[in-house]
């Protein structure tokens, strides 16, 4: 793409030459420079699609860096803390394995997939890499990732992994990846605001989860306008809200999927051949989420959210009472010393449910040392080898870290996690995270999301129609894109 600013910078100089020229030259210059600008702009447009190279598929290049010991390039994203923790993890691995050197290659979150694509197009993909599910499955189907099934099936550690943390494709016969780590979805809350309103803290036991109506009632009691009236007060001024009851991003899968499951619905039905979000169970969830914003006025609109700070800052400043978010947010909440926060289970519709999702860690099919890559792959399972578990960013994928007390205490650090983490993270995940997120089994998910779901959800969030109307429109686009499941 040609940035308008880039183009603008060249034009005054061209004008300078126009001024000094004769009129005949001036005409030519004007025509010429505009035509040249047109050509360059056009070329840039075209270049945008081709700039990542014309390579179609190339064999792995001879890598001069790779010598004994086996060197593996490991590409990953993350915050500065994650960057440092992963670098430390690889140092630990390298120290224990003198015959293998893992070289961490950090890439910023923005543009990560573009850089991965470019590396592949250039014939130099990393040996191991974090990868978004859409891209990972596409790479796997095209043979760019190693089918890990021979290693995973031989690994005595595999049966100890939580259900659903091994991502499969090709009718479930091949293994794309095991999850890097996992997270669930939960309800964070602001203790002082609950105490001030004399409301009991959110339930930590899934069996006692609030119903949606109970949750809405609590949200109303905690939402206040600038005159201190809460949202149950007939004089409540919805145009002038000071404290929001809840932040719940209805466009974010980890927020809406557990609620849809809780209501008996799903993203895709019938072997992922049928679009599920316009079914009554899902529609009800989106409508209720939309109502939080526009009917009950207890959650910020997208416009308000766009200019508000993050939820942990809002809580610290007393402007937010509850936040439906992923477990990784513990890292932010725990680092805010002035904030007294806690956690609870999500409200439910028909039955309690949370999510369980993670990031695929792929091994490239061009990797020259697959055995060594898998050695690193399984080494990073254990929370004692990387700080990100006890810092509150990751949850383990091995079931023993949810069932054995000594192992639970290895990652639930009482200095970081609140007391109720034992129920809300450990028990809740173990017993109520039973469904797979759609990106791990629905084929053609990127197109379904881009072309149908995301436009509909942004319109629901902007109150441009009812959930039923907008999701029915989405279904018309999505249904032809449904191509079944990676699992069967």
């Amino acid at each position, binding site marked *: *793409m040609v*940035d308008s*600013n880039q*183009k*603008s910078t060249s*034009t*005054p100089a061209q*004008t300078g030459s*126009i*001024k000094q020229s004769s*009129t*005949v030259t*001036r*005409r030519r210059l*004007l*025509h010429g*420079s*505009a*035509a040249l*600008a*047109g050509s*360059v702009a*056009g*070329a*840039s*447009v*075209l*270049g*945008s*699609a*081709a700039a*990542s190279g*014309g*390579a179609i*598929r190339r064999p792995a290049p001879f890598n001069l860096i790779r010598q004994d010991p086996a060197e593996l390039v490991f590409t990953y994203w993350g915050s500065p803390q994650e960057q440092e923790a992963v670098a430390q993890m690889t140092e630990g691995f390298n120290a224990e394995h003198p015959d293998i050197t893992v070289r961490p290659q950090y890439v910023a979150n923005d543009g990560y*997939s573009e850089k991965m*694509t470019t590396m*592949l197009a250039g014939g130099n993909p990393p040996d191991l890499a974090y990868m978004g599910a*859409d*891209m990972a499955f*596409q*790479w796997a*189907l*095209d043979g760019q990732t190693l089918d890990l099934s021979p290693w995973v099936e031989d690994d005595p550690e595999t049966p100890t992994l939580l259900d659903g943390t091994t991502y499969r494709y090709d009718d479930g016969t091949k293994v794309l990846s095991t999850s890097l780590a996992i997270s669930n979805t939960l309800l964070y809350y602001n203790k002082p605001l609950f105490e001030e309103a004399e409301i009991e803290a959110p339930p930590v036991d899934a069996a006692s989860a609030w119903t949606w109506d109970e949750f809405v009632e609590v949200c109303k009691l905690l939402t206040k306008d600038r005159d201190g009236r809460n949202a149950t007060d007939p004089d409540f001024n919805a145009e002038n809200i000071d404290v929001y009851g809840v932040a719940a991003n209805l466009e974010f899968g980890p927020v809406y999927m557990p609620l849809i499951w809780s209501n008996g619905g799903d993203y895709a039905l019938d072997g992922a051949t049928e679009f599920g979000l316009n079914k009554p169970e899902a529609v009800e969830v989106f409508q209720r989420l939309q109502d939080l914003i526009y009917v009950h006025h207890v959650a910020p*609109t*997208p*416009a308000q959210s*766009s*200019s508000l700070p993050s939820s942990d800052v809002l809580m610290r400043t007393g402007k937010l009472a509850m936040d439906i978010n992923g477990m990784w947010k513990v890292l932010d909440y725990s680092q805010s010393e002035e904030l007294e926060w806690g956690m609870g289970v999500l409200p439910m519709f028909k039955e309690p449910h949370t999510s369980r999702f993670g990031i695929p860690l792929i091994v490239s099919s061009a990797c020259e040392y697959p055995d060594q890559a898998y050695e690193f792959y399984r080494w990073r399972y254990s929370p004692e080898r990387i700080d990100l578990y006890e810092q509150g960013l990751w949850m383990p994928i091995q079931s023993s870290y949810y069932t054995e007390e000594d192992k639970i205490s290895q990652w639930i650090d009482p200095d970081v996690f609140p007391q109720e983490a034992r129920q809300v993270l450990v028990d809740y995940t173990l017993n109520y995270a039973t469904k797979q997120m759609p990106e791990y089994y629905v084929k053609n998910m*990127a*197109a379904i999301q*881009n*072309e149908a779901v*995301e*436009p509909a959800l*942004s*319109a629901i969030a*902007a109150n*441009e129609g009812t959930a039923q109307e*907008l999701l029915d429109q989405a279904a018309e686009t999505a249904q032809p894109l449904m191509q079944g499941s990676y699992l069967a």
Partner: protein
Amino acid sequence: MSSTADLQTATVPTRKRRRWISSEAMWGLICVSPAILGFLLWDIGPMIASIVLSFSDWSVTGTTSWIGTENFQRLFGDDALFRQSAQVTLTYAFVSVPLQIIVAMALALLLNEKVKGLPIFRTIFYVPSTVPLIASSMIWLWMYNPDFGLFNAVLNFFGLPEQQWIFSSDTVVLSLIIMSLWSIGPMMIIFLAGLTAIPQHLYDAVSVDGGNVFNRLWTVTIPMLTPTILFNLVLSVITSLQTFTQAYVMTDGGPGNASLFYGLYLYRTAFQQGEFGYAASLAVVQFAVIVVLSLLVFRTSSRWVHYGGDT
């Protein structure tokens, strides 16, 4: 041939044999060669690659097949997002380009007057253009905030109803059109340069004939500025048809697909869905539209562009 050469030699005995290129031209070419090479390698090269790839299903990861015109059939057939993004982009271009030209010209006329502090005013109007588009997008995101943004505060002040601006599908494109005026500084400078090149005697002639300000504008300024208008028109048509950053940063194509600009759709198709072949066909169509519109402007320019004394 040899007889002609002999004749030339005979008739002009003192003339040295011409080198195929003069020393001056050679040095000129050497000096501009980096730019020429850059253009060939980084513009023409990808351009040709893109045209070739538009006839394939290239996805970077998988094997590639040549699929003829299948991409173009899909594009003009059942791709609703192609139509939506084209409509959004063309609406934006057809409204924002004339608006930008009119406002930039009006500002240039004002800033061409001999008033005190003129350089300061010129700087003030140019400075927004120096702000990177990402940064200005963030600023405008705040100004468009329906709750505490500047625009709704102004509407409130005049007792007018508040708007949702970029947060409503009804007003999002209009909001981005208004925002496009933020970066008209360079266009304004070009108009200013054009204005300073207009000979004073033409204005004197209008004054002698009893003409007023409007006559000066209509009979001298605008006709003499038409070459500059042509230049700005072509450039801004191209720029507006390639709008990407504002939609990417501020709206992500939403709400719904109300601000799904063509460039954003192309980007998503390539980098989020991995359909590089199809994205290349989108780029080829965009290129063709830009070329056609540019040619249209050039072809009609002889009817309305006035090159001073050269006609």
